[in-house]
């Protein structure tokens, strides 16, 4: 009898619960995604696996980020890349290379170039504004990805300087984490596909630890960005986000 009651209660509660979720607006969903993914600061140790047409390479790096405007990355392996550092301050990006002992500021079309032959551009790395700050969202449907029920959101840029004018994103209805994304140019042409896997709960957030970026204009299997370790909201000393730290 007690079991029957539970089943009845569940059958009553679950639809209400789902109704509650389905009543979320697209902007609210996006807000929840931002809350889940973004934080004031992060320290990330990651590995990029670049699947080229001739070989596959792995690059290990450690990145520090604070807010939307400060980011510092140091490449740790392989030997050729070791010691290369990148600093982003607002919309400026500097790269330091130990073999030439030069710090070079990248700008203009160079920001659209691939980072280390990967499917990510410098622009992709630099863009870390919250989605709600850049896009207007609209729910266009639902789909199941990897046995997870997702909303399909169409995002249209509200700012002029967005790297991608339009995005289509599949948001896990339960964990508020994107599982798939398609990035489009202003012309409507599909530029990149992103697939998120290995979603884990880290410090109370659902976070995808394996992200595959695929530049559809390139052949190959794309680039896997694997998070080896991530800390949310750590204290990062100010000297990290300083040009002097590039040569340190």
């Amino acid at each position, binding site marked *: 009898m007690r079991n029957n009651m539970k089943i009845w209660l569940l059958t009553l509660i679950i639809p209400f619960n789902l109704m509650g979720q389905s009543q979320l607006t697209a902007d609210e969903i996006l807000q929840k995604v931002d809350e889940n993914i973004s934080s004031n600061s992060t320290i990330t140790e990651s590995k990029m696996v*670049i699947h*080229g*047409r*001739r*070989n596959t*390479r792995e690059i290990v790096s450690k990145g520090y980020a604070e807010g939307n405007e400060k980011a510092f990355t140091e490449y740790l392996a392989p030997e*050729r*890349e070791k010691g*290369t550092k990148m600093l982003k301050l607002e919309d400026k990006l500097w*790269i330091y*290379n130990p*073999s*030439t*002992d*030069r*710090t*070079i*500021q*990248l*700008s203009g*079309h*160079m920001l659209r*170039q*691939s980072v*280390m*032959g*990967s499917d990510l551009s410098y622009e992709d790395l630099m863009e870390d504004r919250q989605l709600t700050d850049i896009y207007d969202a609209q729910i266009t449907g639902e789909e199941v990805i990897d046995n997870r029920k997702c909303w399909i959101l169409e995002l249209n840029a509200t700012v002029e300087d967005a790297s991608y004018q339009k995005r289509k994103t599949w948001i896990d209805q339960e964990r508020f984490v994107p599982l798939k994304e398609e990035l489009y140019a202003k012309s409507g042409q599909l530029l990149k596909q992103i697939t998120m896997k290995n979603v884990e709960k880290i410090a109370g957030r659902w976070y995808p630890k394996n992200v595959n970026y695929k530049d559809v204009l390139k052949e190959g299997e794309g680039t896997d960005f694997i998070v080896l370790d991530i800390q949310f909201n750590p204290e990062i000393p100010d000297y990290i986000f300083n040009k002097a730290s590039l040569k340190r």
Partner: protein
Amino acid sequence: MIQFILKGILRDKNRSLLPIIIVALGVTLTVFLSGYLAGVFQDIINQNARFDTGHVKIMSRSYADNKDQMPIDLALLDVDQLQEGLEKSYPEVEWVKRIRFGGLLDIADDNGNTKGQGPASVMAISLFSQESREAERLNIEQALVSGEIPGKNGEVLIAHDFSEKLNIEIGDEITYVGSTMYGSMAFQNFIVSGTVHFGTAGFDRGAVVMDISDAQTLLDMDNGATEILGYFESGQYNSEKAFEIANEFNQKQASSDDEFAPKMFSLEQQNNLGDMLAYSNYMSQIIVIILIFAMSVVLWNTGLLGGLRRYKEYGIRLALGESKGSIYRKSIIEAILIGGMGSIIGTILGLSATYYMQEVGVDISDLMPQSSMMIPSTLRAKMIPSQFYIGFIPGVCAMVLGNMLSGMGIYKRQTAHLFKELEV
């Protein structure tokens, strides 16, 4: 008889002056235009061959499919072995390795911060090898504006316009930033040994020339090259031979399904140069035909007027018993002589104009389109052997055709009415 007719032409200016001027003008145009088109088209083709296409070119299949993007990750590897094989199979062709790639050139100030920056298009050729004729082929010695050709690793040439834009001087250190063949970051410092001006807008905007060994190290492209170019030993492009070599080479590779297998292209199979060669031939023919037609119409009209003026003369000659055929034939001989004289004058004028345009040229660098085809920034005419006879085709043909049409009136004269006509 010819001497008699010639005397008549020279002494009676009313009979010859206008037709000779018309023929001379038409022939001048024909000779000059054929020399101008030949010069321009030949310059474009030579420029492309020297800088880009070779007489034949080998790339990997996948590189060839995307060659406009200069995808160095799809370059040819083990090129020394490939080059050796080519030298054995086709000894009449000189084979050279080149690497073309793009990147960013950064110039530092005294504190090591970026002073200037610009996108660079780098061409790596064999500069240090004693046997290499690449420097001579690209006319580097003549193209040097300042400094000297690199003599050791780590030295580069830079386009003069580019050096002025970035405020670079000889001996300055520049940093190249780009990607290696495998996608890693490529950073290297180079010393500018000289500046060059090639006269090709695309190159002069942002070219850097370095030795191929430097590029192979920089791009992590050991024993690799983006392309192998072949040049006939004679220096002249031979279309049939190039097709034959390319077909034979490609047939040998046909069974391979490797996307990096080498593939050969003749000059005409690149940069739409085949269309350009065909176009230049058609253009020359069309110009000659149009000029023959236009001049014939004018000379027909001139002949008719002359015929009217000589109406009495023809009548008397007919009355004296000269046959219509004889008068008609003599007027044709007269036309040949006048056409010949006009053609000689026109050819001299046309050749003079061609020579002037060959030496001076027209600077079109400001109008240069963004094109994969390499177009010289100064268009020049070129004196070619056919210019010495090509003007005689429209010159003589048009004059004869004009006289044949107008002379038909002679056959319409009726001998029975001649005296009555002459009384008038």
